[in-house]
């Protein structure tokens, strides 16, 4: 491409970004005013404004992508985060592999959600739709201002260098290339739940139809968050070199907290939808879920809590995001305080009922989330108020958080099967007795078979089996007395969604407990040609050789893996050095198997001519992410349920209009 055109594209993108800011201002103010004054023409502006904002941000994002793809080193951001020799995939993922670009992606996704609400929200009441899109526009305004004034991706350099400084090599990985976009889709998706909550508070009305509109957005956001978190944890597992998959790092927690709140929200929205209860709690959850997403952004961008993931350590940006957070969350909570009392509950139900089960679900999820929050922020509080400089790490979270998940797992199958309105606990437990017996039997069997008396693995297996079998009995019971299996396929998709999501949680719980309980490790110095064994596997270091990749140097070992004497695989663990970024990385070699992964890492050459080698057997490793995928699949199936596709809300909403303060 001729440089002059490339230059124009960047300026065009910059211009589109600034224009998007002004459109967002309009989008935030005019429809809101229109809804207040019941002026149709002003409210109608919401749709073209949302479309225009999306279009402009697409142009801006496209322009930045072109700059990265063509390695336009007159752009400061490209110089700092790219290199001409970098593979194309990472040139593209480099667009969001940095602070400025990722913020641009953030507002682009925000505009995308605003746009979809504008186009597909035809069954929404006019005023609600206008207000939702306006709130979405207000969030956009704030973040566009943040980008333009503190983090402009289109800043040029006076004298462009010959080449760039390369992207952090740890981030040059397919798993991580797509980890941030999914997380942003999740974070920003929760902005829709927030906008709906604020719009409903302004309207002073929330009913079953409202919940039916909010739930798909929450579900979608939760599905994206699930995938994003799973990708990140999978990346940590194979990339960081010792097979850890979750570190309770502040930035991980920042994505985990919205996930927990979103999970709580999508359950409480069911109660609003089916029973017109838990309204104010659901609104509060919607505000908090997005509030914690904003806090996640704040934690990552401000460098307030240092972490492996932190992009930038810039107090000015931190203060800006803190102000945005204060405005939106503070504003929404104030509104909530004034209006929540108007959201009176309608449904009545007895103490033992599905409703109560869902309340218990919300208690466990919300409190466990707050535990993560307290643990994450405690080092900061302790230093500010008690003058103690301390750390809160994985051992704390494992101890303080896990009991909530165990309790959740124990109650889940019962709560999920209790009938609505009024149930008998004895009847439900009776239905589940085989699931319970089978789960106990499995756990007992494994406990007898394993070496050592640790209960961690068996408890994990019990919980996992209990949840999966419970979910199976639940879906089987949906067939009614006929027991005709052919009807399974015709069950509502939300039933299948529930089945897969709950089963996925069970699988993940079992996998995490099993991996932590039954992992085996071996550390040694090995000469070339030497063999060693771990469990019933044995390994031979065949060779170690140096070579080079597109933008790195590598020391690659060749290791043969034998199972009871039969060769089953050859794996190639690597140590890489990225000279431009001046950074070494380890590339573990993993032989993925159904029940366990064999995980081999090569270390430094030793003085005696041998190599340091670490070998692990990681049982059930794949199951952690398989469970996460099942959860995401469950969410997706629920999302495609008929009642969300059909304009079901339109009918329900008609009788409500007569008494707005209901």
């Amino acid at each position, binding site marked *: 491409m001729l440089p002059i055109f490339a230059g124009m594209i960047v300026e065009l993108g910059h211009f589109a970004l600034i224009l998007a800011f002004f459109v967002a201002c309009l989008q935030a103010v005019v429809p809101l005013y229109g809804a207040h004054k019941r002026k149709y023409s002003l409210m109608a502006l919401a749709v073209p404004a949302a479309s225009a904002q999306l279009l402009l941000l697409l142009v801006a994002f496209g322009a930045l992508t072109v700059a990265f793809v063509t390695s336009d080193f007159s752009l400061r951001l490209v110089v700092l985060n790219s290199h001409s020799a970098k593979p194309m995939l990472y040139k593209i993922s480099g667009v969001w592999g940095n602070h400025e670009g990722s913020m641009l992606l953030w507002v682009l996704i925000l505009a995308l959600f605003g746009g979809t609400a504008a186009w597909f929200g035809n069954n929404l009441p006019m005023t609600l739709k206008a207000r939702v899109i306006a709130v979405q526009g207000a969030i956009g305004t704030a973040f566009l201002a943040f980008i333009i004034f503190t983090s402009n991706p289109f800043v040029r350099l006076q004298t462009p260098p010959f080449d760039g400084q390369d992207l952090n090599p740890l981030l040059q990985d397919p798993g991580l290339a797509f980890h941030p976009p999914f997380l942003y889709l999740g974070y920003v998706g929760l902005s829709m739940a927030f906008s709906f909550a604020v719009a409903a508070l302004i309207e002073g009305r929330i009913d079953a139809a409202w919940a039916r509109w909010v739930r798909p957005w929450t579900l979608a956001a939760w599905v994206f968050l699930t995938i994003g978190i799973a990708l990140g944890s999978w990346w940590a597992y194979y990339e960081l070199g010792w097979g850890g998959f979750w570190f309770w790092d502040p930035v991980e927690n920042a994505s985990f907290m919205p996930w927990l709140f979103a999970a709580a929200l999508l359950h409480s929205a069911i109660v609003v939808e089916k029973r017109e209860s838990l309204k104010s709690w659901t609104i509060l959850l919607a505000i908090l879920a997005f509030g914690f997403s904003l806090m996640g952004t704040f934690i990552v961008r401000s460098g307030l809590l240092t972490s*492996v993931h932190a992009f930038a350590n810039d107090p000015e940006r931190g203060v800006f995001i803190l102000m945005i957070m204060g405005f939106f969350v503070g504003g929404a909570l104030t509104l909530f305080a004034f209006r929540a009392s108007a959201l009176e509950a309608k449904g009545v139900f007895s103490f033992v009922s599905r409703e109560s089960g869902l309340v*218990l679900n919300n208690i466990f999820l919300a409190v466990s989330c707050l535990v993560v929050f307290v643990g994450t922020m*405690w080092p900061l509080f*302790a230093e500010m108020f008690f003058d*103690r400089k301390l750390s809160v790490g994985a051992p704390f979270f494992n101890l303080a958080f896990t009991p909530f998940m165990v309790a959740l797992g124990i109650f889940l199958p019962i709560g999920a099967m209790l009938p609505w309105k009024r149930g008998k606990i004895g009847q439900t437990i009776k239905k589940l007795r085989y699931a319970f017996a089978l789960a106990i039997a499995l756990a007992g069997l494994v406990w007898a078979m394993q070496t050592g008396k640790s209960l961690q693995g068996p408890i994990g297996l019990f919980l996992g089996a209990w949840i999966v079998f419970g979910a199976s009995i639940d879906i089987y019971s949906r067939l009614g007395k006929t027991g005709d299996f052919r009807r399974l396929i015709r069950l509502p998709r939300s039933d299948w969604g529930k089945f897969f999501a709950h089963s996925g949680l069970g699988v993940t719980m079992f996998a995490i407990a099993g991996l932590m309980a039954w992992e085996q490790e071996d550390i040694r110095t090995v000469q070339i040609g030497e063999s060693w064994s771990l469990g019933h596997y044995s390994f031979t270091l065949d060779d170690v050789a140096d070579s080079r990749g597109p933008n790195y140097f590598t020391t690659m070992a060749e290791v043969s893996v034998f199972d009871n004497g039969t060769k089953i695989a050859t794996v190639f663990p690597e140590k890489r050095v990225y000279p431009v970024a*001046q950074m070494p990385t380890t590339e573990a070699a993993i032989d993925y198997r159904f029940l366990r992964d064999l995980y081999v890492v090569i270390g430094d050459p030793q003085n005696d001519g041998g190599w340091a080698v670490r070998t692990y057997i990681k049982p059930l490793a794949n199951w952690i992410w398989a469970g996460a995928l099942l959860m995401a699949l469950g969410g997706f199936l629920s999302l495609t349920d008929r009642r969300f596709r059909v304009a079901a809300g339109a009918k329900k909403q008609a009788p409500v209009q007569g008494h707005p303060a209901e």
Partner: protein
Amino acid sequence: MKKLLLIIVLLLPNIALAVQPDEVLSDPALEARAREISKDLRCLVCQNESIDDSNASLARDLRLIVRERLVKGDSNDEVKTFIVERYGEFALLRPTAGGANRILWLSGPLMLLLALLFGGIYLRGRSRASQALQSDLSDDEKRRLDELLKD
């Protein structure tokens, strides 16, 4: 050019495995204790990594100190105290339960109790409402409510 690259590579920080073969104690029971302690100690120059996971040279030094103390006959707590006396409580990934940290450790159980309390009150209110509704109703309405609650 090739020579230059070689020099660059050699000058880079060498990547080491977390626990290295030469650190491992010959007594497996003692080594297991060392690993357990290491998971609770923070690599002070790293970002939220335990010395068991970290590649940094300081982490290696700390791992060696831990093993040295264990060989000398220290208990697990004595080893941790030894490290905290030198590096401060910042080195503990599992904060102590003393002083203000009680808030940290008790926050989970307390919040759970509060949530259960409020949740219980709310649920009682809902089920009372259903009973209250029932007593205010005419026989016909009662029958209808019963029917509603049944399905």
